[in-house]
């Protein structure tokens, strides 16, 4: 039995489910922060196995879903300029304010390459010295360190045709904003395993300390998720809200200091807007002074369309856990994976897409 299959073992999962059923003696609303958790919960069928009085909500943990309209319009404006974009696959179908997407502008002649890492994008620039390559730097603390390391390499190697569009976001400030919103009723959080490998546990401690909100850093296999829910329920029963790291096989309590160091050397925190959540202080990353030469916004000065204020899309409410995707009036009628209005429907890790794809 390998490590992965052990965490998918049906018998072990069944035993934990029985304990969950025993502990869930009143209604609970738990939010998973990470999009990979959302997909895992649906794909493994956990959603159909949990007791009915446990509602699970998907929070702002899908990097595509929280990318603001203005940022989408900015990279679409860049795509229409004389340069080459390098992006993770997730962004290809995200619609801008006029319904454009990288897929569509690519069909019209824009040059867009799907890459697996920022280093691949840098290599693209090195291999094509006559072209300007812009990497679309989205993602949370998980991806920011490798982007930072890539920028450092680009500086060292004096690659002059490589740029990034910084759109990174930081998870703890977003959770601070959520936890302090009096309208949001959440009984516990599944904290993102990938992000926590970098941050460690400390940036999340305020959840229990300031808001009495139990939270568990969770892995992504079914048994990880079920055990995390069980821990949340037990903390409620014992009235001992805390932040627990139950993903110790991947997450050290202190996180990854080296990755944080490189991230802090290249980026500095700035206020930024999240789709649906609005402006959140200190939740974005911009390049520090010595790396500003790599900033695609400064170099190319794209002129993005201003986002429309009222599209009817309720992604923001979904990301805050205020409504479930089917409660959005656009869900499955105007907004589908084929013609998504909001990124929660377009992203493979989006809550709306998961409801659409997996719900019976």
């Amino acid at each position, binding site marked *: 039995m390998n490590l992965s299959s052990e965490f998918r073992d049906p018998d072990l*999962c069944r035993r934990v489910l029985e304990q969950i059923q025993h502990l869930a003696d009143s209604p609970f609303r738990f939010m998973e922060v990470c999009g990979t958790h959302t997909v895992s919960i649906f794909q493994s069928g956990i959603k159909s196995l949990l007791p009915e009085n446990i509602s699970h909500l998907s929070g702002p943990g899908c990097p595509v879903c929280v990318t603001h309209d203005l940022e989408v319009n900015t990279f679409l404006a860049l795509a229409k300029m004389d340069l080459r974009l390098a992006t*993770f696959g997730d962004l290809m179908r995200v619609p801008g304010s006029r319904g454009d997407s990288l897929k569509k502008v690519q069909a019209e002649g824009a040059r867009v390459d799907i890459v697996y890492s920022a280093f691949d994008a840098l290599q693209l620039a090195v291999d094509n010295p006559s072209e300007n390559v812009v990497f679309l730097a989205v993602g949370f603390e998980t991806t920011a360190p490798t982007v930072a390391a890539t920028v450092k390499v680009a500086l060292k190697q004096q690659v002059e045709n490589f740029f990034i569009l910084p759109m990174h976001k930081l998870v703890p400030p977003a959770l601070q904003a959520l936890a302090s919103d009096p309208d949001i009723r959440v009984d516990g959080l599944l904290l993102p395993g990938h992000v926590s490998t970098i941050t460690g546990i400390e940036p999340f401690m305020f959840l229990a300390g300031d808001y009495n909100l139990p939270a568990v850093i969770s892995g992504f296999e079914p048994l990880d998720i079920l055990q995390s829910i069980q821990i949340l329920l037990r903390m409620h029963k014992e009235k001992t809200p805390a932040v627990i790291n139950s993903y110790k096989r991947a997450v050290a309590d202190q996180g990854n200091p080296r990755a944080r160091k490189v991230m802090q050397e290249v980026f500095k925190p700035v206020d930024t807007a999240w789709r649906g959540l609005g402006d959140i202080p200190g939740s974005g990353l911009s390049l520090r002074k010595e790396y500003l030469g790599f900033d695609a916004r400064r170099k190319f000065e794209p002129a993005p369309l201003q986002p429309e204020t009222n599209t009817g899309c309720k992604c923001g409410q979904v990301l805050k856990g205020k409504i479930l995707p089917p409660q959005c009036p656009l869900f499955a009628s105007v907004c589908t994976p084929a013609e998504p209005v909001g990124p929660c429907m377009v992203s493979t890790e989006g809550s709306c897409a998961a409801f659409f794809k997996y719900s*019976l």
Partner: protein
Amino acid sequence: MSDRVLLDYGSGGKASQRLIREIFLKHLGNPGLNRLDDAALIEDLSGPLAVSTDTFTIFPLFFPGGDIGSLAVHGTVNDVAMLGAEPRYLSCAFLLEEGLDMQDLDRIAASMGRAAADCGVQVITGDTKVVPKGAADKMFINTTGIGMVIADPAPSGSRAEPGDAVLISGTMGDHGLAILTHRQGLKFETDIQSDSQALNSLTTRLIREVGDVHVLRDPTRGGLATTLNEIASQSGCEILLQEDQVPVRREVQGGCSFLGLDPLYLANEGKFICILPEDLASKALEVMRSHPAGRDAALIGYVREGQKGRVVLRTSLGGHRLLDMLEGEQLPRIC
């Protein structure tokens, strides 16, 4: 001959003749093709015939476990076989980009010749066009296959019935992941090979030895999930798929997990779905497992009344969820 394909080779003149003789007839020649008439004469087929055509565009041209040439034979032979037919003849049209390496073309034609001989079909007519550099990506191949239907009635995606069992001839996702990883230069612990292979000798045995096969379908683009959705929709029934019964190689599972892909949606080029009455399932499995192309065969689900056109997945944990068609292509995720 030049070491590169020139526009001259598509001119219809002497250069074209040299290309046909020195590449295509050398590897694909047979008495029918060697006549070089405008059309092929077929004298030995009778009864219901199955015809299928497909165009192959693939990057890279050579991949672990195959190449565009063998794929162009296997793909069309398999499509003909899925109608319960014995494939016999192929046509073959090449669209070549100016500048294509002549050695690559020779290797691909040789590979087609071997693949055709292995599955007992002859290429009896063909065509070659050369387009200017940049107008096509190296090489496209169209093949059309023709064969005699031996099943009565012929299997069809519309014939799945409640009470039928759903079988699969082997592991899922090998081809799709092999192509993707080779294309991106990704290395895993084990080299993942395409499953490209001809299935006609196995489907012929199934029809002759088991009989009453309702559906045969190869889950190529879109993979198992998409193909089952097509069948459920054509037949107006619901299919229940049991996740823990679907064979997936460990290295494919691992690669998919790493890339954020689902093996149920990855393309296969050497596997087929067989749907038939449940009481014939064990006999069919026995036949499949005794053949090299079906040694990992498994019973993976059932057809039931349920909701028309829907595929439900029973997960390994015992939960249930919708298994929908894929929207567009699978794209690797951010983290």
